[in-house]
């Protein structure tokens, strides 16, 4: 079943076309990868889906409902959550509070209820804290729950971003280069975590990643962008041998060489 359907999405910044008529379908409970060289327009694509940029044209549908052009917080509410390429945690507040911020849309406390501690508000808060702690356990950060988010190691910060994104209880999770800057051990752990989220939480995941080993290992389907255009799509095995893809990554010469060898 298709959960997220993107059709002919285009974004231009003045004269520059960052994304040109990109279509994508994310299947339920599958990992869809979006790859491409630097500057291919992958993050722009994510930013349009999550409402940070307004698409110039094209449509985005979540379970058949159009979400194109909605504000980011409204998109989050519809059930799309994301992590960021350059980590965007709330640095000076605690790890647990970061996850609690992710629960924002699910907490009902109003201003008067909060000020006067109406029954229910405190209870709701306890439940949220507990749930946030469970999520930290899930990504393996429960020991640090009272630490400042900025004090975590790089790899842990990436994990915390994932926990925070999960706290919004999304139906689609967008991961923007989750393994960037990680060492091989951390990357392997992360691969396991992403697999676990997919299976245990029935999550639909869309992934931008440069680490080809990770991508080939866990992706169910791959889309390849170059210069803002979709140049190939298919199963990992197909994409791996696609001439255009090799060309985009390694240059024309390499593609011909490989062809001569093969």
């Amino acid at each position: 079943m298709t959960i997220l359907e993107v059709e002919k999405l285009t974004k231009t910044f003045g004269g520059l076309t960052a994304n040109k008529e990109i279509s994508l379908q994310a299947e339920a409970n599958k990992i869809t990868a979006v790859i491409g060289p630097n500057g291919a327009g992958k993050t722009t694509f994510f930013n349009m889906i999550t409402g940070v940029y307004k698409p110039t044209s094209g449509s985005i549908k979540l379970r058949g409902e159009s979400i194109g052009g909605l504000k980011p917080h409204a998109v989050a509410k519809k059930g799309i959550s994301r992590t960021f390429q350059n980590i965007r945690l709330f640095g000076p507040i605690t790890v647990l509070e970061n996850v609690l911020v992710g629960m924002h849309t699910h907490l009902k406390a109003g201003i008067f209820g909060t000020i006067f501690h109406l029954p229910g508000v405190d209870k709701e808060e306890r439940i949220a804290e507990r749930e946030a702690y469970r999520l930290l356990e899930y990504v393996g950060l429960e020991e640090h729950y009272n630490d400042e988010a900025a004090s975590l190691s790089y790899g842990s910060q990436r994990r915390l971003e994932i926990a925070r994104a999960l706290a919004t209880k999304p139906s689609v999770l967008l991961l923007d280069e989750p393994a960037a800057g990680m060492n091989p051990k951390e990357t392997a752990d992360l691969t396991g975590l992403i697999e676990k989220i997919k299976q245990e939480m029935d999550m639909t995941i869309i992934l931008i990643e440069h680490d080809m080993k990770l991508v080939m290992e866990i992706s169910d389907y791959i889309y390849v962008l170059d210069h803002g255009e979709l140049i190939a799509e298919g199963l990992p095995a197909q994409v791996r041998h696609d001439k255009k893809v090799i060309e985009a990554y390694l240059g024309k010469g390499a593609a011909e060489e490989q062809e001569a060898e093969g």
Partner: protein
Amino acid sequence: MKKILDQIRGNKWLQLGLLVGYIALTSLSLILAQRSVAAFLLLLLSFLLLYYTKLPNWSKWAIGLAIMFFILPFSAMQGPAYQEYMDVATLVGIYVSMALGLNIVVGMAGLLDLGFVAFFAVGAYTYGIFATAQANNFMPFGTYPLSGNSFWIFIILGCFVAALFGVLLGIPVLRVKGDYLAIVTLGFGEIIRIVFNNMDQPVNITNGALGLSSIAPPKIFGIELLYSNQIYFVVLFILLFIIFAVRSLEHSKLGRSWKAVRENEIAAQAMGIPLVKTKLMAFAIGASFSGMMGVVFAAKQAFIDPTSFTLLQSINILVMVLLGGMGSVPGVILGAAVVTILNAQVLNELTMWFNSLSTAGIITLPDAMSPVKMQRFFFGALLILFALYRSKGLIPAKNVVYDKRKFLSEKGTKKRLQSVAAPKEDEHDHTGS
């Protein structure tokens, strides 16, 4: 010496004993000394000591309330400077409330507001206009001035009117960020003052530069509250409510979303936090505290004019927040108290002391060098020193420390968990966009 300090640090009963002794000593000296600013200040210092003791929270509050309600008024009552002390204490309460309001805007939500005094002015004029004959000029019904009994309603009214102005300011202004926001809010503050200054024509609403005089004092059970020692308790009740509210908000859903917006707007939005609505809430709540105190200020002074609400005042309140520690509630309370006392009492006393010295012929101090006139210099120097050596303020903001035993052990949460987990389609905060 170190050994003794360590022992004090570890033993809370010893701390309690010393604190009680200190309070007894300072309040006694305040009673005995006919007029001693030092004793008064030392007694106020006991709040700070109280803050640093390791006593449980409820007992800290109990001792704090006892000082505020009984010990301080009682020991000040004995001397001839009673009203003077209470006046300072009342001013401290007013400024602490305003600083706590600004702290929400600047410290928690990270929106630099240089025109904060405008909301104070709005509150003050809300009461001022209707508690004098001024309202007769433009109101088609009713007779004015309203009696002092209406003061209590006006506290709430001032709160809402100021909140409304906060939202009105926020809607156009929140499109800009950072430095630009500071400039625009500065402009807003000046606009409000100038508007009040000029709204005597064509219809005389604010009485212009002449100001509003003989504003009705608050009245309760037929008693007019004319003196500072009476107003003090009014301020105290409002202040306690504000501290309670701020404390509740700080670690709530709303407080967290303010901090999230402050730290990273894009990430905050991606977590489902509506940006505009969250910022407007900060403006409105911050402004409402200021508005309430504006009403009290108008009633206390019985006279207001636009010169009470200048840019310098806004900066004054900002200095309190910066000095105390942005985002830190105890810090801001301390900062506001220090600045107000310095302004209202210490500098005056120093000037008087220098004057008496020069009349006695011991030193000669040119008039331009008197401490009162150098007030701005002192604040400037203080700010520079703080920026250099303690940039996070007197008491830096601390994160709440969660106790996992508390939220993990709670019974009956399992079932509720799922109901919270279910996505809600019909939530009510769509309005923010």
